[in-house]
């Protein structure tokens, strides 16, 4: 029921296990903290702490029907294993580093306007804001080929594209 969740065995050769995945996860959070990537760190913590929702198998159903008289749901809600915690963190990073640049590129291409000429600006909130927000150019969301290759190759040992 978690088709997107990367199995760690597919991710990084499975040489580490159990508590080591949690150590790696904590290491990632610490490094994000050092870089002041606070919003991404929060996103990761939210993703990693979300429970896994799974649908039970026919075998499970048969077993449960022998245990209970009334009807119960087919869903199993459980907490993430250490490897799933790290995997959830990598999903967040992959969204930012692979999906976002791809969609920004597609936006520019489909509108037929160079990314340098597209920007995001806020509306009237700006008038009352203590700190004025600069326009965000679409360009800042796009990676050139060299950057994209570097990101892809840096993500590779961490298994980010395992299910892609």
């Amino acid at each position, binding site marked *: 029921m978690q088709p997107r969740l990367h199995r760690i065995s597919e991710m990084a050769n499975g040489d580490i296990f159990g508590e080591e995945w949690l150590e790696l996860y904590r290491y990632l959070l610490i490094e994000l903290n050092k870089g002041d990537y606070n919003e991404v760190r929060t996103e990761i913590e939210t993703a990693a702490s979300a429970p896994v929702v799974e649908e039970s198998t026919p075998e499970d159903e048969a077993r449960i029907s022998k245990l209970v008289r009334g009807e119960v749901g087919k869903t199993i809600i459980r907490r993430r294993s250490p490897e799933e915690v790290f995997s959830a963190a990598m999903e967040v990073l992959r969204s930012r580093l692979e999906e976002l640049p791809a*969609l920004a590129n597609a936006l520019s291409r489909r509108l037929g306007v160079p990314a340098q000429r597209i920007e995001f600006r806020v509306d009237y909130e700006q*008038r009352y804001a203590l700190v004025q927000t600069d326009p965000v150019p679409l360009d800042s969301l796009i990676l050139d080929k060299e950057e994209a290759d570097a990101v892809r190759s840096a993500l590779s040992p961490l298994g980010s594209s395992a299910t892609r």
Partner: protein
Amino acid sequence: MATLNELKQAIDNLLGLSASGRLLHLNSNTCERAYEAYVLSLCADAVRGAGGSATLTGIKTGANPVIVVLRGGPGEMASKDQDFCYVDCVLGRKRFEIHADVVYEGQSGASHEIDVSICEATHAQDVRQSGRAPRTNKYLIAAVECKFYQSTPGVALARTFVGLIKDCSPNRLNAFVSNRSSPGLDSFLSTTWAPKPFTDLTALNSQSEGRFIANVEQVLRQWERSR
């Protein structure tokens, strides 16, 4: 075989890239708005695919502005604080506009932000002239909720969008668009009263892009033939 230390080194390498730094410092709001604008561009492609024209138009400067300004947050359709862009479209006898992140007034009178909306041009012109909010009435052709998930999606947002749809006149298309799916979200959106789902819609998945464009195209063609 990767050891713990090798994986820590891989994290250091990844976070040490200047490109990673740039993208990881963006706020989530920017990611959301970029996704909405991307969906707007898919809708513009659908108009062209149906044989119509779709012209980027600035509210202050008119057709094909030098700088295309997209909304970095929800706002008023009539706002002229910035040269916000919409897509001015013509398909056969029909003229309509595609907007991103505009606040509509629901049938109940409550305000609703619609991520990507398609509305009749006459209504949008009335809105710009009067400075009032557009309404979720018969002039609203399509309402699209967009969500750029960075992890496994839940059903909360889709549930909220169902409430919004109930506050609209029957539209031609109510769609829930997201870059990811989850079994829970798919189950929720498979019910008859749910918006049409387009999950897993990303620029990395041309099949899902094609399906969304084809659906919008079909809705617009049918609407164009009506009346």
